[in-house]
Protein backbone atom coordinates (compact mmCIF):
# COMPACT_ATOMS: atom_id res chain seq x y z
CA UNK A 1 0.00 0.00 0.00
CA UNK A 2 1.31 3.41 -0.89
CA UNK A 3 1.27 6.63 1.01
CA UNK A 4 -1.75 8.16 -0.79
CA UNK A 5 -3.90 5.20 0.22
CA UNK A 6 -2.72 5.28 3.82
CA UNK A 7 -3.20 9.03 4.01
CA UNK A 8 -6.74 8.78 2.68
CA UNK A 9 -7.51 6.14 5.33
CA UNK A 10 -6.11 8.35 8.08
CA UNK A 11 -8.23 11.26 6.92
CA UNK A 12 -11.41 9.18 7.06
CA UNK A 13 -11.55 10.08 10.75
CA UNK A 14 -11.66 13.89 10.45
CA UNK A 15 -11.81 14.55 14.19
CA UNK A 16 -8.80 12.37 14.91
CA UNK A 17 -6.75 13.66 11.99
CA UNK A 18 -7.54 17.25 12.97
CA UNK A 19 -6.50 16.53 16.53
CA UNK A 20 -3.26 14.90 15.31
CA UNK A 21 -2.55 17.92 13.11
CA UNK A 22 -3.19 20.41 15.91
CA UNK A 23 -1.19 18.46 18.48
CA UNK A 24 1.89 18.36 16.29
CA UNK A 25 1.47 21.96 15.18
CA UNK A 26 1.46 22.93 18.86
CA UNK A 27 4.87 21.28 19.20
CA UNK A 28 6.13 23.07 16.10
CA UNK A 29 4.90 26.31 17.67
CA UNK A 30 6.74 25.55 20.91
CA UNK A 31 9.87 24.97 18.87
CA UNK A 32 9.43 28.38 17.20
CA UNK A 33 8.99 30.18 20.52
CA UNK A 34 11.95 28.42 22.09
CA UNK A 35 14.26 28.95 19.13
CA UNK A 36 13.44 32.65 19.21
CA UNK A 37 14.89 32.91 22.71
CA UNK A 38 18.31 32.11 21.25
CA UNK A 39 19.49 35.13 19.25
CA UNK A 40 22.22 33.11 17.53
CA UNK A 41 19.81 30.35 16.47
CA UNK A 42 20.56 30.56 12.75
CA UNK A 43 24.29 30.67 13.46
CA UNK A 44 23.98 27.55 15.58
CA UNK A 45 22.23 25.76 12.73
CA UNK A 46 24.98 26.75 10.37
CA UNK A 47 27.64 25.59 12.83
CA UNK A 48 25.91 22.27 13.40
CA UNK A 49 25.57 21.76 9.67
CA UNK A 50 29.23 22.59 9.04
CA UNK A 51 30.43 20.37 11.86
CA UNK A 52 28.44 17.48 10.40
CA UNK A 53 29.85 18.23 6.93
CA UNK A 54 33.29 17.86 8.46
CA UNK A 55 32.26 14.60 10.08
CA UNK A 56 30.97 13.08 6.86
CA UNK A 57 34.11 14.10 5.03
CA UNK A 58 36.35 12.46 7.62
CA UNK A 59 34.12 9.71 8.88
CA UNK A 60 36.55 6.81 8.79
CA UNK A 61 39.21 8.72 10.72
CA UNK A 62 36.72 9.84 13.34
CA UNK A 63 35.34 6.34 13.77
CA UNK A 64 38.82 4.98 14.35
CA UNK A 65 39.64 7.79 16.78
CA UNK A 66 36.38 7.16 18.62
CA UNK A 67 37.07 3.45 18.82
CA UNK A 68 40.62 3.95 20.05
CA UNK A 69 39.56 6.29 22.83
CA UNK A 70 36.54 4.27 23.86
CA UNK A 71 38.56 1.08 24.08
CA UNK A 72 41.21 2.83 26.10
CA UNK A 73 38.48 3.91 28.50
CA UNK A 74 37.33 0.33 28.95
CA UNK A 75 34.42 0.24 26.50
CA UNK A 76 34.07 -2.68 24.09
CA UNK A 77 33.44 -1.79 20.45
CA UNK A 78 31.70 -3.96 17.89
CA UNK A 79 31.09 -3.25 14.21
CA UNK A 80 27.99 -4.39 12.36
CA UNK A 81 27.70 -3.99 8.61
CA UNK A 82 23.98 -4.56 8.61
CA UNK A 83 20.88 -5.04 10.75
CA UNK A 84 21.29 -8.81 10.91
CA UNK A 85 24.82 -8.55 12.20
CA UNK A 86 23.79 -5.94 14.77
CA UNK A 87 21.08 -8.24 16.08
CA UNK A 88 23.42 -11.21 16.21
CA UNK A 89 25.96 -9.21 18.18
CA UNK A 90 23.32 -8.19 20.71
CA UNK A 91 22.17 -11.78 21.04
CA UNK A 92 25.68 -13.08 21.50
CA UNK A 93 26.33 -10.63 24.32
CA UNK A 94 23.08 -11.68 25.97
CA UNK A 95 23.97 -15.34 25.62
CA UNK A 96 27.37 -14.71 27.18
CA UNK A 97 25.65 -12.99 30.07
CA UNK A 98 23.04 -15.73 30.27
CA UNK A 99 20.40 -13.04 30.06
CA UNK A 100 16.87 -13.59 28.80
CA UNK A 101 15.14 -10.40 29.91
CA UNK A 102 16.32 -6.94 29.01
CA UNK A 103 15.20 -3.32 29.09
CA UNK A 104 15.67 -0.95 26.20
CA UNK A 105 15.41 2.81 25.96
CA UNK A 106 14.58 4.72 22.81
CA UNK A 107 16.71 3.74 19.85
CA UNK A 108 15.36 4.23 16.38
CA UNK A 109 18.34 2.28 15.13
CA UNK A 110 17.14 -0.81 16.97
CA UNK A 111 13.72 -0.27 15.36
CA UNK A 112 15.44 -0.06 12.00
CA UNK A 113 17.18 -3.36 12.73
CA UNK A 114 13.94 -4.96 13.95
CA UNK A 115 15.79 -6.01 17.06
CA UNK A 116 12.78 -6.71 19.26
CA UNK A 117 11.16 -9.43 17.13
CA UNK A 118 14.57 -11.00 16.54
CA UNK A 119 15.34 -11.22 20.25
CA UNK A 120 11.85 -12.40 21.09
CA UNK A 121 12.20 -15.15 18.52
CA UNK A 122 15.29 -16.24 20.44
CA UNK A 123 13.54 -16.31 23.77
CA UNK A 124 14.54 -12.90 25.11
CA UNK A 125 11.96 -10.64 26.75
CA UNK A 126 12.46 -7.04 25.62
CA UNK A 127 10.79 -4.24 27.52
CA UNK A 128 10.83 -0.83 25.88
CA UNK A 129 11.05 1.58 28.77
CA UNK A 130 10.25 4.93 27.22
CA UNK A 131 6.60 5.40 28.17
CA UNK A 132 5.46 6.10 24.63
CA UNK A 133 7.43 3.13 23.33
CA UNK A 134 6.05 0.82 26.03
CA UNK A 135 2.57 1.85 25.03
CA UNK A 136 3.09 1.04 21.35
CA UNK A 137 4.92 -2.13 22.32
CA UNK A 138 1.86 -3.29 24.26
CA UNK A 139 -0.18 -2.56 21.14
CA UNK A 140 2.25 -4.39 18.86
CA UNK A 141 2.71 -1.22 16.87
CA UNK A 142 5.89 0.53 15.80
CA UNK A 143 6.39 4.10 17.02
CA UNK A 144 4.58 6.60 14.79
CA UNK A 145 7.04 9.42 15.51
CA UNK A 146 10.73 9.12 16.32
CA UNK A 147 10.53 11.38 19.39
CA UNK A 148 6.84 11.06 20.36
CA UNK A 149 6.14 7.37 19.75
CA UNK A 150 2.50 7.38 20.88
CA UNK A 151 1.48 10.77 19.52
CA UNK A 152 -1.24 9.10 17.46
CA UNK A 153 -3.05 7.74 20.53
CA UNK A 154 -5.61 9.39 22.74
CA UNK A 155 -5.62 8.94 26.49
CA UNK A 156 -8.81 6.94 26.31
CA UNK A 157 -7.02 4.35 24.19
CA UNK A 158 -4.08 4.29 26.59
CA UNK A 159 -6.41 3.97 29.56
CA UNK A 160 -8.09 0.94 28.00
CA UNK A 161 -4.71 -0.55 27.17
CA UNK A 162 -3.35 -0.10 30.68
CA UNK A 163 -6.52 -1.52 32.17
CA UNK A 164 -5.87 -4.62 30.13
CA UNK A 165 -2.11 -4.86 30.60
CA UNK A 166 -1.44 -3.23 33.95
CA UNK A 167 -4.74 -3.63 35.76
CA UNK A 168 -5.36 0.08 36.09
CA UNK A 169 -8.88 1.26 36.97
CA UNK A 170 -11.25 0.93 34.08
CA UNK A 171 -12.10 4.29 32.61
CA UNK A 172 -9.44 6.21 34.52
CA UNK A 173 -7.82 8.38 31.88
CA UNK A 174 -5.85 10.65 34.17
CA UNK A 175 -2.39 10.95 32.61
CA UNK A 176 -0.68 11.21 36.01
CA UNK A 177 -2.42 8.07 37.25
CA UNK A 178 -1.56 6.14 34.11
CA UNK A 179 2.06 7.32 34.17
CA UNK A 180 2.45 6.20 37.78
CA UNK A 181 1.10 2.78 36.88
CA UNK A 182 3.71 2.55 34.15
CA UNK A 183 6.37 3.81 36.55
CA UNK A 184 5.73 0.98 38.98
CA UNK A 185 5.53 -1.60 36.25
CA UNK A 186 8.75 -0.44 34.59
CA UNK A 187 10.58 -0.11 37.90
CA UNK A 188 10.19 -3.82 38.44
CA UNK A 189 11.71 -4.43 35.04
CA UNK A 190 14.61 -2.05 35.69
CA UNK A 191 15.41 -3.69 39.00
CA UNK A 192 15.42 -7.13 37.41
CA UNK A 193 17.29 -6.49 34.17
CA UNK A 194 20.93 -7.49 33.94
CA UNK A 195 21.40 -6.02 30.49
CA UNK A 196 20.12 -2.68 29.25
CA UNK A 197 20.19 -1.39 25.70
CA UNK A 198 20.23 2.28 24.75
CA UNK A 199 20.66 4.29 21.63
CA UNK A 200 23.30 6.97 21.17
CA UNK A 201 22.54 10.60 20.48
CA UNK A 202 26.15 11.67 19.98
CA UNK A 203 29.48 9.84 20.00
CA UNK A 204 32.51 12.06 20.59
CA UNK A 205 35.58 11.04 18.61
CA UNK A 206 37.97 13.13 20.70
CA UNK A 207 37.16 11.39 23.97
CA UNK A 208 35.46 8.11 23.06
CA UNK A 209 32.46 9.09 25.14
CA UNK A 210 28.84 8.97 24.04
CA UNK A 211 25.79 10.91 25.13
CA UNK A 212 22.24 9.70 25.70
CA UNK A 213 19.48 12.29 26.12
CA UNK A 214 16.11 11.54 27.73
CA UNK A 215 13.34 13.34 29.57
CA UNK A 216 12.11 10.33 31.51
CA UNK A 217 15.39 9.01 32.85
CA UNK A 218 14.52 5.55 31.60
CA UNK A 219 17.83 5.00 29.77
CA UNK A 220 19.74 5.65 32.97
CA UNK A 221 17.41 3.62 35.17
CA UNK A 222 18.13 0.73 32.87
CA UNK A 223 21.87 0.98 32.49
CA UNK A 224 22.85 1.93 36.03
CA UNK A 225 20.95 -1.00 37.52
CA UNK A 226 22.10 -3.48 34.90
CA UNK A 227 25.55 -5.03 34.74
CA UNK A 228 25.91 -4.65 31.01
CA UNK A 229 25.06 -1.62 28.89
CA UNK A 230 24.78 -2.13 25.14
CA UNK A 231 24.64 1.07 23.10
CA UNK A 232 23.53 0.83 19.48
CA UNK A 233 25.03 3.61 17.42
CA UNK A 234 24.68 4.54 13.76
CA UNK A 235 28.10 5.40 12.37
CA UNK A 236 26.89 8.86 11.41
CA UNK A 237 26.25 9.83 15.06
CA UNK A 238 29.89 10.83 15.51
CA UNK A 239 30.90 14.38 16.31
CA UNK A 240 34.52 15.48 16.37
CA UNK A 241 35.09 17.15 19.75
CA UNK A 242 33.48 17.34 23.15
CA UNK A 243 32.91 21.08 22.87
CA UNK A 244 30.74 20.50 19.79
CA UNK A 245 28.21 18.92 22.12
CA UNK A 246 27.33 22.47 23.18
CA UNK A 247 26.12 23.30 19.68
CA UNK A 248 24.08 20.14 19.29
CA UNK A 249 22.59 20.07 22.77
CA UNK A 250 21.50 23.69 22.38
CA UNK A 251 19.68 22.74 19.17
CA UNK A 252 18.35 19.25 19.87
CA UNK A 253 15.65 19.63 22.52
CA UNK A 254 14.59 23.04 21.26
CA UNK A 255 14.01 21.57 17.82
CA UNK A 256 12.42 18.37 19.04
CA UNK A 257 9.98 19.40 21.75
CA UNK A 258 10.49 23.09 22.35
CA UNK A 259 12.33 22.52 25.63
CA UNK A 260 15.58 24.31 26.31
CA UNK A 261 17.29 20.99 27.11
CA UNK A 262 16.24 17.42 27.84
CA UNK A 263 16.11 16.56 31.52
CA UNK A 264 18.97 14.11 31.40
CA UNK A 265 22.05 14.22 29.20
CA UNK A 266 24.21 11.31 30.25
CA UNK A 267 27.81 11.16 29.13
CA UNK A 268 29.21 7.62 29.19
CA UNK A 269 32.96 7.19 29.11
CA UNK A 270 33.82 4.13 31.21
CA UNK A 271 31.71 1.47 32.87
CA UNK A 272 31.12 1.48 36.62
CA UNK A 273 33.36 -0.93 38.46
CA UNK A 274 32.53 -4.52 37.71
CA UNK A 275 30.23 -3.61 34.83
CA UNK A 276 30.53 -3.53 31.04
CA UNK A 277 29.69 -1.09 28.29
CA UNK A 278 29.46 -2.24 24.68
CA UNK A 279 28.97 0.00 21.67
CA UNK A 280 27.78 -1.51 18.40
CA UNK A 281 28.70 0.69 15.45
CA UNK A 282 26.18 0.05 12.69
CA UNK A 283 26.37 0.68 8.96
CA UNK A 284 23.14 -0.81 7.54
CA UNK A 285 23.08 1.33 4.42
CA UNK A 286 24.79 4.39 5.82
CA UNK A 287 27.99 3.97 3.80
CA UNK A 288 25.83 3.49 0.71
CA UNK A 289 24.01 6.76 1.44
CA UNK A 290 27.38 8.40 2.04
CA UNK A 291 28.27 7.44 -1.49
CA UNK A 292 25.23 9.18 -2.95
CA UNK A 293 26.30 12.74 -3.58
CA UNK A 294 22.76 14.08 -3.76
CA UNK A 295 21.62 12.38 -0.58
CA UNK A 296 24.72 12.30 1.57
CA UNK A 297 23.50 15.26 3.64
CA UNK A 298 20.64 13.21 5.01
CA UNK A 299 23.23 11.51 7.24
CA UNK A 300 23.63 14.71 9.22
CA UNK A 301 20.29 14.00 10.87
CA UNK A 302 20.27 14.11 14.68
CA UNK A 303 16.81 12.54 14.89
CA UNK A 304 15.05 15.52 16.43
CA UNK A 305 11.75 15.05 14.56
CA UNK A 306 11.24 18.76 13.90
CA UNK A 307 10.65 18.02 10.23
CA UNK A 308 7.78 15.73 11.15
CA UNK A 309 6.18 18.31 13.41
CA UNK A 310 6.29 20.97 10.73
CA UNK A 311 5.23 18.81 7.80
CA UNK A 312 1.61 19.51 6.84
CA UNK A 313 1.47 16.07 5.24
CA UNK A 314 2.88 14.19 8.23
CA UNK A 315 0.52 15.97 10.56
CA UNK A 316 -2.48 14.99 8.47
CA UNK A 317 -1.52 11.46 7.54
CA UNK A 318 0.32 10.17 10.61
CA UNK A 319 3.61 8.33 10.92
CA UNK A 320 2.21 4.93 9.98
CA UNK A 321 1.21 6.15 6.53
CA UNK A 322 4.86 6.14 5.51
CA UNK A 323 5.45 2.47 6.34
CA UNK A 324 9.02 3.34 7.10
CA UNK A 325 10.94 3.05 10.39
CA UNK A 326 11.76 6.72 10.19
CA UNK A 327 8.69 8.45 8.78
CA UNK A 328 8.03 11.99 7.66
CA UNK A 329 10.28 14.17 5.53
CA UNK A 330 13.62 12.80 6.76
CA UNK A 331 12.35 9.24 6.45
CA UNK A 332 11.30 9.97 2.90
CA UNK A 333 14.89 10.77 1.94
CA UNK A 334 16.53 8.03 4.02
CA UNK A 335 14.28 5.07 3.29
CA UNK A 336 14.42 5.15 -0.53
CA UNK A 337 18.16 4.62 -0.10
CA UNK A 338 17.42 1.37 1.70
CA UNK A 339 14.65 0.14 -0.61
CA UNK A 340 13.72 2.33 -3.54
CA UNK A 341 10.88 0.15 -4.74
CA UNK A 342 9.16 -0.23 -1.39
CA UNK A 343 9.41 3.46 -0.61
CA UNK A 344 8.84 4.86 -4.09
CA UNK A 345 5.71 6.82 -3.10
CA UNK A 346 7.43 8.63 -0.23
CA UNK A 347 9.28 11.33 -2.18
CA UNK A 348 5.92 12.20 -3.74
CA UNK A 349 4.16 12.43 -0.38
CA UNK A 350 5.08 16.09 -0.30
CA UNK A 351 4.24 19.41 -1.88
CA UNK A 352 7.93 20.39 -1.64
CA UNK A 353 6.87 23.31 0.55
CA UNK A 354 10.32 23.48 2.12
CA UNK A 355 9.24 23.97 5.72
CA UNK A 356 11.21 20.88 6.82
CA UNK A 357 14.44 22.26 5.43
CA UNK A 358 13.99 25.51 7.35
CA UNK A 359 13.38 23.82 10.72
CA UNK A 360 16.13 21.24 10.37
CA UNK A 361 18.78 22.05 12.99
CA UNK A 362 21.54 20.69 10.79
CA UNK A 363 20.24 22.31 7.62
CA UNK A 364 19.58 19.18 5.63
CA UNK A 365 18.10 20.26 2.31
CA UNK A 366 15.24 17.82 2.77
CA UNK A 367 12.81 19.20 0.20
CA UNK A 368 15.57 19.40 -2.41
CA UNK A 369 16.41 15.75 -1.78
CA UNK A 370 12.74 14.80 -2.09
CA UNK A 371 12.76 16.37 -5.55
CA UNK A 372 15.98 14.52 -6.46
CA UNK A 373 14.63 11.18 -5.22
CA UNK A 374 11.65 11.65 -7.54
CA UNK A 375 14.06 11.68 -10.46
CA UNK A 376 15.63 8.45 -9.17
CA UNK A 377 12.27 6.76 -8.71
CA UNK A 378 11.16 7.35 -12.30
CA UNK A 379 14.56 6.29 -13.61
CA UNK A 380 14.35 3.06 -11.65
CA UNK A 381 10.81 2.46 -12.84
CA UNK A 382 12.03 2.90 -16.42
CA UNK A 383 9.19 5.22 -17.34
CA UNK A 384 9.54 8.19 -19.59
CA UNK A 385 7.28 11.03 -20.43
CA UNK A 386 6.72 10.13 -24.08
CA UNK A 387 5.14 6.77 -23.52
CA UNK A 388 2.92 8.14 -20.84
CA UNK A 389 1.44 11.05 -22.73
CA UNK A 390 -0.42 8.67 -25.02
CA UNK A 391 -1.99 6.92 -22.06
CA UNK A 392 -2.65 10.31 -20.58
CA UNK A 393 -4.58 11.57 -23.53
CA UNK A 394 -6.80 8.50 -23.47
CA UNK A 395 -7.29 8.65 -19.74
CA UNK A 396 -8.25 12.28 -19.64
CA UNK A 397 -10.80 12.19 -22.36
CA UNK A 398 -12.62 9.38 -20.75
CA UNK A 399 -13.58 11.85 -18.05
CA UNK A 400 -17.09 13.23 -18.34
CA UNK A 401 -16.02 16.55 -16.85
CA UNK A 402 -13.71 17.24 -19.73
CA UNK A 403 -16.64 17.50 -22.10
CA UNK A 404 -17.76 20.67 -20.40
CA UNK A 405 -14.66 22.34 -21.72
CA UNK A 406 -13.58 23.16 -25.19
CA UNK A 407 -11.29 20.46 -26.40
CA UNK A 408 -8.72 23.00 -27.45
CA UNK A 409 -8.40 24.44 -23.97
CA UNK A 410 -8.22 21.04 -22.34
CA UNK A 411 -5.64 19.81 -24.79
CA UNK A 412 -3.49 22.85 -24.36
CA UNK A 413 -3.76 23.08 -20.62
CA UNK A 414 -3.44 19.44 -19.82
CA UNK A 415 -0.97 18.15 -22.39
CA UNK A 416 1.83 19.20 -20.10
CA UNK A 417 0.47 17.46 -17.05
CA UNK A 418 2.37 14.23 -16.60
CA UNK A 419 2.49 10.88 -14.93
CA UNK A 420 0.22 10.74 -11.95
CA UNK A 421 -2.55 12.44 -13.86
CA UNK A 422 -3.09 9.61 -16.26
CA UNK A 423 -6.00 8.14 -14.39
CA UNK A 424 -8.82 10.57 -15.02
CA UNK A 425 -7.17 13.50 -13.30
CA UNK A 426 -10.18 15.67 -13.80
CA UNK A 427 -12.30 13.19 -11.96
CA UNK A 428 -9.82 13.08 -9.10
CA UNK A 429 -9.59 16.85 -9.02
CA UNK A 430 -13.34 17.09 -9.17
CA UNK A 431 -14.03 14.84 -6.19
CA UNK A 432 -13.94 17.70 -3.73
CA UNK A 433 -13.08 20.71 -5.87
CA UNK A 434 -14.67 22.60 -8.70
CA UNK A 435 -12.67 23.37 -11.80
CA UNK A 436 -12.08 27.03 -12.59
CA UNK A 437 -14.70 28.67 -14.79
CA UNK A 438 -13.73 28.66 -18.47
CA UNK A 439 -12.86 32.07 -19.85
CA UNK A 440 -14.07 33.09 -23.27
CA UNK A 441 -10.56 33.42 -24.60
CA UNK A 442 -7.04 32.62 -23.51
CA UNK A 443 -4.55 35.35 -22.70
CA UNK A 444 -2.71 34.60 -25.89
CA UNK A 445 -5.88 35.15 -27.89
CA UNK A 446 -6.61 38.38 -26.03
CA UNK A 447 -3.06 39.61 -26.58
CA UNK A 448 -3.15 38.89 -30.26
CA UNK A 449 -6.42 40.81 -30.59
CA UNK A 450 -5.55 43.74 -28.34
CA UNK A 451 -1.86 44.25 -28.49
CA UNK A 452 -0.23 42.89 -31.56
Amino acid at each position, binding site marked *: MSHPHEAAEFLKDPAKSKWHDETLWF*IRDKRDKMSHT*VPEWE*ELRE*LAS*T*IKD*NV*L*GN*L*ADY*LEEFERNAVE*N*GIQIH*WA*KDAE*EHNEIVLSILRKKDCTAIVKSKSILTEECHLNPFLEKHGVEVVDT*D*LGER*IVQFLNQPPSHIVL*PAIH*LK*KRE*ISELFHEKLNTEKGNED*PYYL*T*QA*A*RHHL*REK*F*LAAKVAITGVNFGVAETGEFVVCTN*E*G*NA*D*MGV*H*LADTHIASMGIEKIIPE*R*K*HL*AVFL*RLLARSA*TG*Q*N*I*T*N*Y*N*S*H*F*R*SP*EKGKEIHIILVDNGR*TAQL*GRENFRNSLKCIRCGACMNTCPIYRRSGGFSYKSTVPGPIGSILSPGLDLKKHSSLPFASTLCGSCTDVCPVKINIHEQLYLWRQEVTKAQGTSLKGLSMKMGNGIFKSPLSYNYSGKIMRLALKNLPTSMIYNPLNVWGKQRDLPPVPKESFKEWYQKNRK
Partner: protein
Amino acid sequence: MSSREHILEKIRVLKLDQKPIPTIPDFGINEDLQERFRASISSNKGEMITAEALIFKIESGLFPNVFSTVSDFADFTNQPLPEDSHAFANLDLAILRGQFGVAENGAIWLEDADLKLRVIPFITEHLVVVLDKNELVPTMHQAYDRIGNAASGFGLFIAGPSKTADIEQSLVIGAQGAKSLIVVLI
Protein backbone atom coordinates in the same frame (compact mmCIF):
# COMPACT_ATOMS: atom_id res chain seq x y z
CA MET B 1 37.52 -9.01 5.86
CA SER B 2 35.98 -8.07 9.18
CA SER B 3 32.94 -5.84 9.25
CA ARG B 4 35.14 -3.14 10.71
CA GLU B 5 37.51 -3.28 7.74
CA HIS B 6 34.58 -3.56 5.37
CA ILE B 7 32.87 -0.45 6.71
CA LEU B 8 36.01 1.66 6.92
CA GLU B 9 37.00 0.61 3.41
CA LYS B 10 33.58 1.53 2.01
CA ILE B 11 33.98 4.98 3.49
CA ARG B 12 37.58 5.56 2.47
CA VAL B 13 37.06 4.49 -1.12
CA LEU B 14 34.72 7.45 -1.59
CA LYS B 15 37.60 9.90 -1.08
CA LEU B 16 35.22 12.61 0.07
CA ASP B 17 36.21 16.26 0.31
CA GLN B 18 37.45 17.17 3.75
CA LYS B 19 35.49 20.14 4.93
CA PRO B 20 37.03 22.20 7.75
CA ILE B 21 35.75 22.32 11.32
CA PRO B 22 34.20 25.71 12.03
CA THR B 23 35.28 27.91 14.92
CA ILE B 24 32.58 28.28 17.52
CA PRO B 25 32.07 31.87 18.65
CA ASP B 26 31.92 32.63 22.34
CA PHE B 27 28.14 32.93 22.63
CA GLY B 28 26.90 34.27 25.94
CA ILE B 29 23.72 35.67 27.38
CA ASN B 30 22.89 39.22 28.35
CA GLU B 31 21.19 38.49 31.61
CA ASP B 32 21.90 38.09 35.27
CA LEU B 33 22.99 34.47 35.55
CA GLN B 34 21.15 33.69 38.75
CA GLU B 35 17.90 35.21 37.46
CA ARG B 36 18.11 33.28 34.23
CA PHE B 37 19.10 30.06 35.96
CA ARG B 38 16.19 30.39 38.34
CA ALA B 39 13.79 31.00 35.44
CA SER B 40 15.18 28.00 33.56
CA ILE B 41 14.83 25.64 36.52
CA SER B 42 11.30 26.85 37.00
CA SER B 43 10.32 26.35 33.38
CA ASN B 44 11.81 22.84 33.57
CA LYS B 45 9.40 22.17 36.48
CA GLY B 46 12.22 22.12 38.98
CA GLU B 47 12.07 24.07 42.22
CA MET B 48 14.56 26.43 43.74
CA ILE B 49 14.41 26.80 47.52
CA THR B 50 16.66 27.98 50.31
CA ALA B 51 18.68 25.67 52.50
CA GLU B 52 16.42 26.58 55.41
CA ALA B 53 13.32 25.65 53.48
CA LEU B 54 14.89 22.32 52.55
CA ILE B 55 15.75 21.56 56.15
CA PHE B 56 12.20 22.36 57.10
CA LYS B 57 10.87 19.98 54.46
CA ILE B 58 13.10 17.14 55.60
CA GLU B 59 12.40 17.71 59.26
CA SER B 60 8.69 17.56 58.61
CA GLY B 61 9.16 13.87 57.79
CA LEU B 62 8.35 14.03 54.10
CA PHE B 63 11.28 11.79 53.20
CA PRO B 64 11.82 8.66 55.33
CA ASN B 65 14.96 7.40 53.60
CA VAL B 66 17.57 10.04 52.96
CA PHE B 67 21.08 9.96 51.55
CA SER B 68 23.22 13.06 51.35
CA THR B 69 26.73 13.53 50.01
CA VAL B 70 26.62 17.21 50.95
CA SER B 71 28.21 17.95 54.30
CA ASP B 72 25.71 20.71 55.16
CA PHE B 73 22.96 18.10 55.19
CA ALA B 74 24.99 15.09 56.28
CA ASP B 75 23.02 14.78 59.51
CA PHE B 76 19.95 13.79 57.59
CA THR B 77 21.58 10.78 55.99
CA ASN B 78 20.01 7.61 57.37
CA GLN B 79 21.07 5.26 54.56
CA PRO B 80 24.56 3.92 54.03
CA LEU B 81 26.03 4.08 50.56
CA PRO B 82 25.46 0.56 49.24
CA GLU B 83 27.70 -1.56 47.05
CA ASP B 84 24.76 -2.59 44.96
CA SER B 85 22.71 0.13 43.28
CA HIS B 86 19.53 -1.93 43.74
CA ALA B 87 19.69 -1.29 47.46
CA PHE B 88 18.60 2.29 46.88
CA ALA B 89 15.29 1.21 45.33
CA ASN B 90 13.41 2.77 48.23
CA LEU B 91 15.43 5.93 48.55
CA ASP B 92 13.10 8.88 49.10
CA LEU B 93 15.54 11.74 49.02
CA ALA B 94 19.05 12.15 47.67
CA ILE B 95 21.03 15.30 48.25
CA LEU B 96 23.94 15.75 45.86
CA ARG B 97 26.35 18.55 45.11
CA GLY B 98 26.49 19.82 41.55
CA GLN B 99 29.69 21.25 40.10
CA PHE B 100 28.06 24.12 38.23
CA GLY B 101 24.83 25.19 36.58
CA VAL B 102 24.04 26.51 33.13
CA ALA B 103 21.87 29.63 33.15
CA GLU B 104 20.37 29.29 29.65
CA ASN B 105 18.67 25.98 30.41
CA GLY B 106 19.01 25.08 34.08
CA ALA B 107 21.33 22.14 33.39
CA ILE B 108 23.55 21.08 36.29
CA TRP B 109 26.73 19.06 35.82
CA LEU B 110 27.64 16.15 38.07
CA GLU B 111 30.31 13.51 37.65
CA ASP B 112 31.01 10.12 39.24
CA ALA B 113 32.74 11.75 42.22
CA ASP B 114 29.62 13.87 42.87
CA LEU B 115 27.16 11.02 42.39
CA LYS B 116 28.95 8.23 44.29
CA LEU B 117 26.62 5.80 42.53
CA ARG B 118 25.38 6.65 39.03
CA VAL B 119 21.86 5.44 39.71
CA ILE B 120 21.21 7.84 42.58
CA PRO B 121 19.73 10.86 40.77
CA PHE B 122 17.38 8.56 38.87
CA ILE B 123 16.30 5.96 41.40
CA THR B 124 15.61 8.37 44.21
CA GLU B 125 12.02 9.47 44.56
CA HIS B 126 13.09 13.09 45.07
CA LEU B 127 16.35 14.80 44.32
CA VAL B 128 18.06 17.82 45.75
CA VAL B 129 21.07 19.33 44.06
CA VAL B 130 23.08 21.84 46.00
CA LEU B 131 24.96 24.38 43.96
CA ASP B 132 27.31 27.25 44.73
CA LYS B 133 25.58 30.36 43.45
CA ASN B 134 28.85 31.62 42.02
CA GLU B 135 29.26 28.48 39.96
CA LEU B 136 26.91 29.43 37.16
CA VAL B 137 27.90 29.74 33.51
CA PRO B 138 25.86 31.42 30.77
CA THR B 139 25.52 28.73 28.06
CA MET B 140 26.49 25.18 27.17
CA HIS B 141 29.57 26.56 25.42
CA GLN B 142 31.04 27.85 28.66
CA ALA B 143 29.86 24.66 30.32
CA TYR B 144 32.00 22.45 28.11
CA ASP B 145 34.90 24.89 28.42
CA ARG B 146 34.58 24.44 32.13
CA ILE B 147 34.43 20.65 31.94
CA GLY B 148 37.55 20.83 29.78
CA ASN B 149 39.42 17.55 29.62
CA ALA B 150 37.91 16.06 32.76
CA ALA B 151 37.83 12.32 32.32
CA SER B 152 35.19 11.06 34.70
CA GLY B 153 33.74 7.71 33.63
CA PHE B 154 30.28 9.26 33.72
CA GLY B 155 28.95 12.80 33.56
CA LEU B 156 25.40 14.06 33.74
CA PHE B 157 23.68 17.27 32.82
CA ILE B 158 20.44 17.17 34.77
CA ALA B 159 17.94 19.97 34.24
CA GLY B 160 14.69 18.97 35.89
CA PRO B 161 12.56 16.23 37.37
CA SER B 162 11.75 13.18 35.27
CA LYS B 163 8.85 13.99 33.00
CA THR B 164 6.85 12.80 30.02
CA ALA B 165 4.10 14.07 27.76
CA ASP B 166 3.55 10.74 26.04
CA ILE B 167 -0.09 10.55 27.10
CA GLU B 168 -1.90 12.93 24.81
CA GLN B 169 0.75 15.59 25.32
CA SER B 170 -0.28 16.13 28.95
CA LEU B 171 2.81 16.95 30.92
CA VAL B 172 3.33 14.53 33.80
CA ILE B 173 6.12 15.11 36.29
CA GLY B 174 7.60 11.89 37.57
CA ALA B 175 8.02 9.33 34.78
CA GLN B 176 10.81 6.81 35.36
CA GLY B 177 13.28 9.01 37.25
CA ALA B 178 13.05 11.32 40.24
CA LYS B 179 9.70 13.01 40.74
CA SER B 180 11.19 16.32 41.70
CA LEU B 181 14.32 18.33 41.31
CA ILE B 182 14.98 20.77 44.10
CA VAL B 183 17.88 23.14 43.67
CA VAL B 184 19.46 24.88 46.59
CA LEU B 185 21.81 27.72 45.75
CA ILE B 186 24.21 28.47 48.53
